[in-house]
């Protein structure tokens, strides 16, 4: 490697951390630097291998239980019962015993609930991801891409008034390489949602937006039938992006929406 940028700025670009001006400048550089293009491809290939590799180590159920146990005073309370006689807290002993028992029951109920909720949300996610990718595919059929064709966010945003019961955040990111193409209505999980369409080089990205159920955050991603999807919540909205472009593009778009 001899191009200095491939060791520095390229990574900021790859991570969507450059400001618009520097990102645009680097894209101009990319047009003339085969080395950086190759380096970017190599990084993307490693990133998608990491994505495929299921390398994220989730906490074992036993650990979760032990931590909850401690926090809820289960074990800790029991430990204190043992200490109490020396400390002269004898009178409170029966109370601690009950508390420990109650905590144990609560804990079992809570862990059970959390696990069920976890399973539920995983399969929920898979269903939504499938519908999002399907909706994106459908939109690519002739004439289905957009209901309102405009690159002007001030045209697209009011178009949704009265068509959905919320105000989707419509922003144009043309300067950052994601020009707004328009919007349309779609149905995901039986709910009418706003779909924003962005261009990315020669690809299209659909971003489906509807009011979120949970707190902001929660970034998830995956691939289905060769299409990437990325889900996150911000500003009280649920976002699902789908496209055949690189996963890094979706990530970059997510960060643009977050700004």
């Amino acid at each position, binding site marked *: *490697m001899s191009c200095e940028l491939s*060791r*520095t*700025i*390229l*990574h*900021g670009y790859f*991570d969507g*951390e450059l400001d618009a001006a520097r990102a645009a400048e680097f894209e101009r550089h990319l047009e003339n630097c085969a080395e950086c293009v*190759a380096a970017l*491809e*190599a*990084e*993307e*290939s*490693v*990133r998608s*291998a*990491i994505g*495929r*590799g*299921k*390398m*994220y*180590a*989730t*906490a*074992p159920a*036993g*650990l*979760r239980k*032990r*931590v*909850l146990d*401690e*926090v*809820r*005073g289960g074990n*800790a309370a029991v430990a*204190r019962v043992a200490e109490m006689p020396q400390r002269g807290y004898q009178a409170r002993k029966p*109370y601690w015993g009950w*508390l420990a028992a109650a905590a144990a029951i609560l804990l079992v109920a809570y862990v059970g609930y959390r696990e069920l909720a976890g399973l539920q949300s995983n399969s929920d996610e898979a269903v939504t991801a499938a519908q999002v990718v399907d909706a994106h595919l459908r939109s690519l059929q002739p004439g289905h891409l957009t209901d309102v064709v405009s690159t002007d966010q001030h045209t697209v945003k009011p178009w949704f008034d009265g068509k959905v019961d919320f105000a989707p955040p419509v922003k144009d990111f043309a300067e950052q390489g994601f020009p707004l193409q328009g919007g349309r209505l779609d149905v995901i999980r039986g709910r009418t949602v706003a779909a924003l369409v962005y261009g990315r080089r020669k690809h299209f990205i659909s971003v489906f937006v509807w009011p979120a159920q949970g707190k902001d955050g929660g*970034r998830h991603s995956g691939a289905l039938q060769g299409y990437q999807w990325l889900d996150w919540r911000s500003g009280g909205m649920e976002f699902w992006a789908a496209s055949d472009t690189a996963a890094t593009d979706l*990530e970059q778009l997510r*960060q643009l929406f977050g700004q």
Partner: protein
Amino acid sequence: MKESARGKDSDVENSPDQVRFEQLVLPHLDAAFNLARWLLRSRADAEDVAQEAMLRAYRFFSGFHGGDARAWLLQIVRNSCYTWLEKNGAAEKLTEFNEELHGPASPTPEALTIAGDEERRLANALESLPARYREVIVLRELEGCSYKEIATIAAIPIGTVMSALARGRRQLQLALLNPARKGAAREL
């Protein structure tokens, strides 16, 4: 864990701290375990250290004044991991990665094309990196942290996050190309 400033009586009732801790910090247990697993290179050790770190976080929770709970927790996890590594004689010298050892190969997507045991190869390659590069890659690629969050968690200036990632990724690619040299990198 009860000697905290919260005092004895607040432990008996369900303290608001406990509820807040369960809402804000506990959901990041996976993040805590994942970081510990990659820093310690062992699931068993990660379980112990992540548990200890969660309890430390709970003890110090009164010192958390809002903001990014995940970053706050991961800072504690990271410190616990390095303390553990030191105690167990496994502390790594933060030596510069020796590129000579790994050859001056220039990775291409083709060369990185993956065999069936891709996951194992990746894990080995990642584990072969020095901890300070391994952690930024784990935080960025697995945890999806922003540069700002990485700077907070890894206690480095935000300006160095990009260069740490650049170096780490280069080493990761080299390690993927030269899996046999894994031991050499590990002993640095």
